[in-house]
Every structure is written in structure tokens, then in C-alpha cells.
């Protein structure tokens, strides 16, 4: 059976959920071969094997952490040469899209980003994508080379499918440009204890109507009662009420959770571009004319400072 490379997103061997989702999709196309860069491959190998990786190619070198993007491209290129895969899959993230791009040019392959589904087609891998703020759904494929595809989180269920997962060392010879962009320092984000925004099953977002940084506590309390991630509209971020890393929308994160709750968000096209593919959409807004209500499965026209705390109390009561 054809082999499919899966680029593993992990922190010291702890594999992030979108990679496990990717293994589910990879199995539709062929035998998944996981590529783990940096430390912790031994730890990662166990969970990768449980989810279908027939082989785990591992490379560790300081270059992966000390320089931007290119060392990882060099490693994936080496993996492509070892495996001759029909496809190379990466979880969609800003950095992974850049890695995918450079790899595609190097190996002479077309590239598809932010796929929401993958299937094996007669002429190769077929990827589903959303276009124009999710108002269109397209099906595309790569017409040249192995398909290089990045896939959005929450695009497939995580399914166990035990396979051998034999760990093999991947030999990487770094290119002339590998040390081109040096990482001078790295400040990890403080953990909030909440799920990561793009991976979360439930996202609770606040917008202009939240009207102040302190008021975001109301949004956070609802998120915590539901075990959700917190998002913010661009208006709230630009006003300095919430960090840019939590921004949902065209210039922030694109999310596709099971449930999206928008509070005090009018629903400008730029925001809709980042959340319109959410499975169930709920909105709370004072303005009955707000465009967000065109998208909702359930909407409450009202003051979020009354509705949200009441909902939080009700969720907490029902859970206890």
C-alpha cells in the first residue's frame, strides 16, 4: 500500500490532537508514516502507533529549535526521499503552512492548505476546502507530484487503529539556508489551563459588546463552565481587551468547533470567515439586526451581561 507522510505536531513528545486526527485521514489514503522532529520521539511513537503509524521517522538536532522553518523543510524532504509518499500531510498552523510551502517547491509538488476533509480519488488525493469566508465548498487535488496538504484541526475524529509504529532514525543533511533565520529568544505563552483555541470542541467568544478587558471575565467564566476555549473578535483585540493570539477571524485563528458561542459580536464578514464552519452556532447580542443572527442555530437578543452569567450558572448547576 502507498505510504503517506504525516508531520507530527508535538511538545517534547506529547502529540497534539490535530496530528491524531490527521492519522485518521491519512489511513484513507495509505499507510501513515509519522515524522517526529526534535526530542521526545520515543514518547510520541507509542501514541502514533496506537493511531495507525506503521513507521515513525525521527530526527533530533538543535537546528529545529534554533532556526526558523527551513531545518524542518530539510527534514521532511529527507523523509520524502526515504519513503516516496503519495501525500505529505501537516496539521494546519501558520508555521506548518510555511514548511509545506517550501517543501512543495523543493519536491515539485502542488500544495493545498486548510483542507477540512480528505479522500482517496481516482486521480489522487481529493481535498475539501472552504472558500470566500466559508460561503463556498471546493474540492481540489494536486496535479503534480505528491500531494502536500495542510489540514485544519477538528476535520476528523481521532480513532485508534494500532499499527507497528517502528521507530527509525531519519538522517537529515541541512541545506545552506537552514541556519538563515536565527531564533534569538523564545518566550512560551503562559498556559491558561483552557483548551487550545483551534483544537477546542467548544469556543466562547466575546466582541465589542463585552466593552472592556475586565468584562472578559464574564466570557471566561462561561468558557470554564463548558470546558471551552476563549475567543475574541478583532474589535475586542484591537481595543486591547484580549490578546491577539485569541483572535478568531480572517487575520486571527480559523476555528471549527462543535459549538461556537458568540457574545456581543455583530458578525462582520472578517469574523465569519474564521468561525462559519462551526457545527452549532449560538449568538447573544443586544442588536436584533446583527448579521451574526443569520448564521445561528440559536440566538438570544439581549444584554450579554444578563444572559451570559445566567447561562453560566445554569451550566454549572446542570453539571453538578
Amino acid at each position: 500500500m502507498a505510504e503517506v507522510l504525516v508531520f507530527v505536531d508535538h511538545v517534547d513528545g506529547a502529540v497534539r490532537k490535530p496530528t491524531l486526527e490527521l492519522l485518521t485521514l491519512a489511513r484513507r489514503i495509505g499507510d501513515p508514516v509519522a515524522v517526529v522532529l526534535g526530542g521526545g520521539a520515543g514518547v510520541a511513537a507509542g501514541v502514533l502507533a496506537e493511531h495507525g503509524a506503521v513507521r515513525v521517522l525521527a530526527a533530533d538536532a538543535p537546528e529545529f529549535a534554533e532556526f526558523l522553518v527551513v531545518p524542518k523543510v530539510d527534514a521532511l524532504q529527507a523523509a520524502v526521499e526515504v519513503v516516496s509518499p503519495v501525500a505529505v500531510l501537516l496539521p494546519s498552523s501558520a508555521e506548518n503552512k510555511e514548511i509545506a510551502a517550501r517543501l512543495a517547491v523543493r519536491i515539485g509538488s502542488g500544495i493545498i492548505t486548510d483542507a477540512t476533509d480528505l479522500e482517496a480519488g481516482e486521480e489522487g488525493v481529493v481535498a475539501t476546502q472552504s472558500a470566500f469566508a466559508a460561503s463556498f465548498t471546493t474540492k481540489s487535488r494536486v496535479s503534480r507530484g505528491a500531494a502536500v496538504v495542510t489540514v485544519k484541526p477538528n476535520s476528523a475524529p481521532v480513532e485508534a487503529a494500532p499499527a507497528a509504529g517502528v521507530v527509525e532514525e531519519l538522517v537529515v543533511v541541512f541545506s545552506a539556508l537552514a541556519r538563515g533565520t536565527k531564533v534569538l529568544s523564545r518566550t512560551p505563552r503562559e498556559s491558561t489551563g483552557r483548551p487550545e483555541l483551534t483544537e477546542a470542541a467548544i469556543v466562547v467568544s466575546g466582541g465589542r459588546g463585552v466593552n472592556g478587558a475586565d468584562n472578559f471575565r464574564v466570557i471566561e467564566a462561561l468558557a470554564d463552565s463548558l470546558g471551552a476555549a476563549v475567543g475574541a473578535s478583532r474589535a475586542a483585540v484591537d481595543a486591547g481587551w484580549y490578546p491577539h493570539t485569541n483572535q478568531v477571524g480572517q487575520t486571527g485563528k480559523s476555528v471549527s468547533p462543535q459549538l461556537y458561542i458568540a457574545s456581543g459580536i455583530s458578525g462582520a464578514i472578517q469574523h465569519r470567515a474564521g468561525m462559519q464552519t462551526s457545527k452549532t452556532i449560538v449568538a447573544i447580542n443586544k442588536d436584533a439586526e446583527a448579521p451574526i443572527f443569520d448564521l445561528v442555530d440559536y440566538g438570544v437578543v439581549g444584554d450579554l451581561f444578563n444572559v451570559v452569567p445566567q447561562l453560566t450558572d445554569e451550566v454549572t448547576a446542570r453539571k453538578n
Partner: protein
Amino acid sequence: MSLRIVVCVKYVPDATGDRHFADDLTLDREDVDGLLSELDEYAVEQALQIADEADDAEVTVLTVGPEDAKDALRKALSMGADKAVHVEDDDLHGTDAVGTSLVLARAVEKTGYDLVISGMASTDGAMGVVPALLAERLGVAQVTLLSEVAVEGGVVTGRRDGDTASERVEASLPAVVSVTDQSGEARYPSFKGIMAAKKKPVVSLDLGDLGLDAGEVGLGGAWTVVDSAVQRPARTAGTIVKDEGEGGKRLAEFLAGQKFI
């Protein structure tokens, strides 16, 4: 020695318009107005700031697109860019991201550069891959997704805010830089700037000028194929209730019914 900055910008359909696909599954440009991609305005702004800080610098704005794409160049010139390069050729219709990076690379090389700057992504295709593709094509460092950027002594430094960490990064020129919408508000063109822009040179190049064949670009030369594009069905109208004191409780009932609680 003069610092040569090339800003790559894109002419995109207005996102607030009714965007859709043409019969050949490329963007239909007929029914919707175009403009300079908002995310590229940040790139123009940073280029102008870097040029201001440098002893001697020249900012060239570059786009690949149809005749109307000159509007995007005019906007950038009126903000303060010195000159413009427009790559225009009928055979470019349907060029994908990989093909676009090839055209941009040739045009950038022909123009001459020390630094290439672009926005983090286009506001239409939104792939966010062209800066990385371009760096690979040019064989130079990429210093991308910066929320702060500075150039001094032939070195570009910046701050890159990722999902899990914020990084300080640096590279020697030549390099490809991309900036985010957090890099600083883009200036509005002044009346003086708009008038001055009319006199600034716009160089037009076609594929022949760049030594490219039609087969390397366009729909035929694309390395990806769109097989279908279907408009998402309008969402079925949801339940909308007015809060009369019980809005939160009723919403909780809905969420419980959907098994979210």
C-alpha cells in the same frame, strides 16, 4: 549604498462584496470590486518606516494581476512608495500560489532587492504561503509573520508571535519578510500623496520580460486543480428568542438538548 525594498501586494475582491467562482472555477472578477488587500497595507507601512530609518532607500511596490490591479499599485504609491512594477499577461489567468511565487521571484530579481516585504496572507485565497514560497524560490532567508520589524546594518530582526511562543528572530539581508496586522496601523494617503502618485513611474512587465513561458503559469501550468466549487446552502433559520429575564436559562435548555451540557 541604497536599501532596495520591494513590497509584494495583491489586488483582491472586496470581501464585503458577493464573491464567487467563474465557470472555469477561478475567481470571478467581473461582479465584485477589487482593492489593495488590507493585509498588504501593513507591508507597505512597514516598508515606508524601514525606508525612513535608512540613510538611503527605495521602495518599489510590485503586483501580479489584471489591468485593474494598477489600482492597488496607485494606493501603495499614494501612501508613499517610490515606484511600481505591474506584471500583467493574459496567460497569467488562473495561476496558483506556486506559480505566483515563480512570477514574483522573477520580477523581484529583475527589479533588484535587498528586502522583500509582503502581508501575512491575501484576504481572498488566504493561504499565507506566498512569502515562504518566494523565499524558497529566491534562495534567501524568510523572516515571516512579524508583529514588529526593524532593519539595521544589513540585518532584519523582528518578533514572531506563534501559537505556543513569541520569538525574536533575525536574518541577514537579502531576506523575505511578512508582517501581520499587529505590526502597526497603515497610514492613509494624504492629498499630496495622491497627487504625487500620479507622477510616479509604473513599469509594466509581461511573461516574456521575465523569461517565463505561458505553460509555466496560468490554469494550465497550475500544480493544483479545483474540481468543483459549490455554494454552501444557506443555514436553515435558527431559533431566535428575545431575553425577557430567562434568556440564559432557555439557551441552557437548547445546549442541553444538543448534548453540550
